[in-house]
C-alpha cells in the first residue's frame, strides 16, 4: 500500500485555487453519464448528494434511518465555525487554520486544514441562502459566540440546535433534488459492503431493513459519509445506531484506517445512573463559561454539595490551570475529572461525577440571566436527573463524543481504494489528535458542498463512465459473503443478547483505551477483545429472520464489526508512544501530568492496512510536514 497525500505544491494559501484549476473537469453535457453512490445523509452526505446532483450527476443516496433528516448530525448543539471576521476581532482564514492545527496538537495535515478554513465562509453564505435561521443581532446581522480553543468569536449558531438547522438545510437541498429525480433516495437501507471491480470502488451491497432483501447497486464512484465510531465505547453522546460498519467493511476491502486511537472524550455529560443506561447526554461546553467545577477536598466528605463550605472544596481546574480555569480544552478537562474520581473524590452514587456549580454566577448575575443563557439545558438536565440545577450543582462526567480517526483520505478525499471517497466524521482528515468545538459541522459541510463536487470530477474524467451492471460476478460474490454472514448470525442461537456483548466491549475500551491509556492496559485489552469476539460468535442470540424488520440482527452486525475494529484502535494506541491531544499515554507525561508529545518520532499519520481478523494490521506512515505553523507545546496554564 502506498500513501500519496497528493498535496498540491505552492504556498499554502494558493494550493486549493491552484488545484481547482489543475484538476480535470467533466463537461456539463457529459455529467449525466456518470453515477455516484453516497452512503450517509448527515451534513457531509446530504450536502454532497445535493451538490453533485445539482451539477448533473446521477446520485443514489442511502441511510439507515427512516428519513435522511434524522442523521446523527441533527443532535449537534453549539455551533459552526467560520472565518467571517464579522466581529472585527482579528479573525482570518489563517487564524482559523492556525487554531485548528494547534487545537489538533499538531497531528493534522496543514493543506487540508487550510482549505477547510478557506471554504468555511462560503458555508455560512450557503446556509443562509437555504433559509437556515441563524441567531441574529437587533440590527439584523448574524450573531456569533465564542468557543473553546479560540480567542475570537467565530461561531454561528441557531439556539441550541445548530446541527438540526444545518442538517435541515442540507436535507432541503437534497429533498429538492429527490423531487427533481436527480437523486434516488434509499432510507432504511444499510450498506454492508463495498464492491471493487478491477481494484476500483464501483458499488455497494445493501440490506433493505424492512424486507431484508440484500441487493447490489453499481455506480462510477462511491462516497462514504457514514459518521464516527464513538459507540465503540457503548456509552457515548452519539445516537444509538451510530456505528463503524461502513468504514470498517471498506477497511476490510483495502481502505487504510487512519489514527483510530484519536477519540474525543467530552468533559461535560450527564453521568451514568445505572446498568441499564443506554446513552449519555451532552451538556453543552458553553456551560463552562459560568459554571465552576469542583469536588470535595477529602474523599471521605459525603455531605450534600450545598453543605460543603468553600474551604472544603477543590476547584481543581481553577487551581491547576489558573489562566484558562474552567475553560481549559476538552481533553485536559476530561482527564482532570478522571483524576479526581480515581482519587476517590468523585460525587454522586457511583462516585463517577464532579460538580458543575452555578451558585456564584446566579449570585452575581441573577437567576434570570442564567435562565436566559442556559434555560433549555437546565430543563433538559432536570428532565433527565430530576435535580434542579438552579438549586443544587449539576453533576457531570466525561463521555465518548467524537472520533478524529477515520478512513485515510488524500487531499481529494479519496481513500486508498480508487473511486472510494470519504467525507465528514468518517474520514480522518482535519482535526489531528483533538477537534475544537464547532469544527465538525464546518468540516462535514466543507467536504460535501465545496470539496467533493470538484475532486470527484477529476476522478471521473480519468476513470471514465463505466455503466456497470450490478449483476456482475464481483457484485454476486460480495452479496454471497454478506448473506453468509447474516445466516451465521441468525444460526448461532446462543444465550446472550447483542447488547450484553456491546456493553462488555464498551467497558473494556473505556477502561483500557479511554481517557488515559498505558501499555499494560492496552495489552490486556488486546487479549480480552478476541476472547469476547469468540464468545460472541458462539453465544450470541439473534431472534427472528432475515426477511423482516429485525433490529437485533442489524445491531448484531454492527457489534460484530466493533468487536474487530476495537483491536485496531488498541494497536494504534499502543504504537503511538507519546501523548498528544485526546490520546494520553500515561507513560508519556510531564512532571505535572501534562501530555508529552514526541515530535521526532510520531509526527505522522498512522494508516492501518487490514491483514485478516485477529491478525495485526500493517502500519503505514504518512509523515506530516509543518511549513506554516511552528510546532509548539500547548499550554493552558
Amino acid at each position: 500500500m502506498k500513501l500519496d497525500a497528493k498535496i498540491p505544491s505552492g504556498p499554502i494559501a494558493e494550493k486549493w485555487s491552484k488545484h481547482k484549476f489543475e484538476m480535470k473537469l467533466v463537461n456539463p453535457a457529459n455529467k449525466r453519464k456518470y453515477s455516484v453512490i453516497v452512503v450517509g445523509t448527515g451534513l457531509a452526505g446530504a450536502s454532497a448528494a445535493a451538490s453533485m446532483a445539482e451539477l448533473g450527476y446521477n446520485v443514489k443516496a442511502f441511510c439507515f434511518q427512516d428519513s435522511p433528516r434524522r442523521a446523527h448530525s441533527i443532535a449537534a448543539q453549539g455551533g459552526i465555525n467560520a472565518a467571517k471576521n464579522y466581529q472585527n476581532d482579528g479573525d482570518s482564514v489563517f487564524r482559523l487554520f492556525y487554531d485548528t492545527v494547534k487545537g489538533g496538537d499538531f497531528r493534522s495535515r496543514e493543506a487540508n486544514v487550510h482549505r477547510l478554513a478557506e471554504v468555511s465562509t462560503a458555508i455560512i453564505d450557503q446556509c443562509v441562502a437555504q433559509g437556515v435561521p441563524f441567531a441574529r443581532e437587533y440590527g439584523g446581522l448574524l450573531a456569533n459566540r465564542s468557543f473553546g480553543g479560540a480567542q475570537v468569536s467565530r461561531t454561528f449558531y441557531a439556539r441550541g440546535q445548530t446541527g438540526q438547522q444545518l442538517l435541515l438545510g442540507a436535507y432541503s437541498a437534497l429533498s429538492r433534488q429527490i423531487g427533481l429525480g436527480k437523486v434516488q433516495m434509499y432510507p432504511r437501507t444499510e450498506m454492508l459492503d463495498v464492491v471493487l471491480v478491477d481494484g476500483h470502488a464501483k458499488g455497494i451491497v445493501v440490506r433493505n431493513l424492512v424486507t431484508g432483501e440484500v441487493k447490489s447497486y453499481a455506480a462510477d464512484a462511491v462516497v462514504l459519509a457514514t459518521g464516527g465510531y464513538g459507540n465503540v465505547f457503548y456509552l457515548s453522546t452519539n445516537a444509538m445506531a451510530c456505528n463503524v460498519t461502513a468504514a470498517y467493511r471498506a477497511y476490510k476491502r483495502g481502505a487504510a484506517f487512519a489514527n483510530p486511537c484519536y477519540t474525543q472524550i467530552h468533559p461535560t455529560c450527564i453521568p451514568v445512573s445505572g446498568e441499564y443506561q443506554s446513552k449519555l447526554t451532552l451538556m453543552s461546553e458553553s456551560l463552562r463559561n459560568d459554571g465552576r467545577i469542583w469536588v470535595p477536598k477529602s474523599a471521605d466528605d459525603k455531605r450534600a454539595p450545598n453543605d460543603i463550605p468553600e474551604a472544603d472544596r477543590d476547584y481543581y481546574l481553577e487551581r491547576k490551570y489558573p489562566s484558562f480555569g474552567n475553560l481549559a480544552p476538552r481533553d485536559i478537562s476530561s482527564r482532570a475529572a478522571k483524576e479526581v474520581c480515581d482519587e476517590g473524590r468523585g460525587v454522586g452514587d457511583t462516585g463517577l461525577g464532579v460538580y458543575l456549580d452555578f451558585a456564584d454566577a446566579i449570585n452575581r448575575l441573577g437567576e434570570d440571566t442564567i435562565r436566559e443563557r442556559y434555560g433549555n439545558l437546565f430543563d433538559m438536565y432536570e428532565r433527565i436527573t430530576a435535580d434542579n440545577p438552579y438549586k443544587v450543582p449539576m453533576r457531570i462526567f466525561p463521555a465518548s463524543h467524537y472520533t478524529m480517526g477515520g478512513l485515510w483520505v488524500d487531499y481529494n478525499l479519496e481513500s486508498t481504494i480508487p473511486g472510494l471517497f470519504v467525507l465528514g466524521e468518517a474520514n480522518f482528515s482535519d482535526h489531528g489528535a483533538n477537534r475544537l468545538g464547532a469544527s465538525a459541522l464546518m468540516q462535514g459541510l466543507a467536504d460535501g458542498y465545496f470539496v467533493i463536487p470538484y475532486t470527484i470530477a477529476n476522478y471521473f474524467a480519468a476513470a471514465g463512465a463505466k455503466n456497470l451492471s450490478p449483476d456482475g460476478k464481483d457484485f454476486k460474490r460480495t452479496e454471497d459473503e454478506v448473506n453468509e454472514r447474516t445466516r451465521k448470525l441468525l444460526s448461532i442461537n446462543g444465550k446472550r443478547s447483542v447488547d450484553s456483548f456491546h456493553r462488555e466491549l464498551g467497558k473494556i475500551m473505556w477502561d483500557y483505551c479511554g481517557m488515559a491509556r498505558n501499555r499494560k492496559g492496552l495489552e490486556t485489552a488486546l487479549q480480552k477483545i478476541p476472547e469476547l469476539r469468540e464468545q460472541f460468535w458462539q453465544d450470541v442470540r439473534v431472534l427472528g429472520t432475515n426477511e423482516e424488520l429485525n433490529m437485533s440482527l442489524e445491531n448484531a452486525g454492527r457489534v460484530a464489526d466493533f468487536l474487530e475494529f476495537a483491536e485496531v484502535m488498541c494497536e494504534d494506541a499502543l504504537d503511538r508512544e507519546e501523548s498528544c491531544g485526546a490520546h494520553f499515554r500515561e507513560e508519556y507525561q510531564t512532571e505535572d501530568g501534562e501530555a508529552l508529545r514526541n515530535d521526532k518520532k510520531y509526527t505522522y499519520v498512522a494508516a492501518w492496512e487490514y491483514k485478516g481478523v485477529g491478525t495485526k494490521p500493517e502500519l503505514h506512515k504518512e509523515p506530516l510536514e509543518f511549513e506554516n505553523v511552528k510546532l509548539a507545546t500547548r499550554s493552558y496554564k
Partner: protein
Amino acid sequence: MNLTLHVWRQKNAHDKGRMEVYQARDISEHMSFLEMLDVVNEQLVEQGIDPIHFDHDCREGICGTCSLVINGAPHGHQKATTTCQLHMRHFSDGDHIYIEPFRAKAFPVIKDLVVDRSAFDRIMQAGGFVSVNTGGIPDANAIPIPKYFAEKAMDAAACIGCGACVAACKNASAMLFVGAKVSQFAHLPQGQVERERRVRAMVAQMDAEGFGNCTNQYECEAVCPKEISVEVIAKMNREYLRAATKKS
C-alpha cells in the same frame, strides 16, 4: 417498581395485530421510557420471544425518530417531552401502561410500534426548500433579517418531524408539520421568491398522501414535543389563500 405493559404487536404490514401483555419488573425511576423497553426486550429475548420493535435513535429529543402512543397520548402525557426523554419517575408501581404505534392512514405500521412516515419526506420534496444551488451565493450579511423574524422562523423550524401532531389529530391532519415549514420560509426574505409555488405544492402533496383536514381541535399543539404553535397553521392558511389569488 413493577409495571404491566399492554403493547401493540404486529408482525408486518399485512398482519392484523393485537395487544400483548408483558410484565416489566424492577424498573428504576431513573430509567428513560425507552430504557425500560430495552430491559423488557432483553428479558423477552431470554425467553425466546421476538423483541418489541420501536423506532429511536438520538434519545435526546431532537432527531424525531422515537414515537409511541403512551396511555393514549403521543409521546406520553409529559408536556414538551419526546418519548425518549420521558422518565419512569412519572409512573408508579403497579401501573398499567398502554403502548401503541402512531396511527394514521398516511403512517402505515411496518412492524409492532414502527410506522412508515415517508409521507413527510415526500411533502418536503414537493416544496420544502429554497431553490438555490451550491455556490455563487452573496455574503451572508448582505440581507439583514430583523431579529424578530429570524426568531419567528426559528420557532417554526424547531419541528423535529416526529409525526405526533398527526397521531394526536382525530382527522390525522399534518397541518402543524406542513405549516411549520411554510411559516419558517414565509418569515424569511430567502423564502419570498417561491412563496406561492411552495405552499401550493406542499398542500397538494399533503392531500395526496391522505392526511386529513384541520378542524381546529389543537390537539397537535398540545402534544408537540417542541411546542410548535398552531399559529403556523393560520399562517399557512393565509399563505395558501394568498397564493390562490395569484397566478403561478
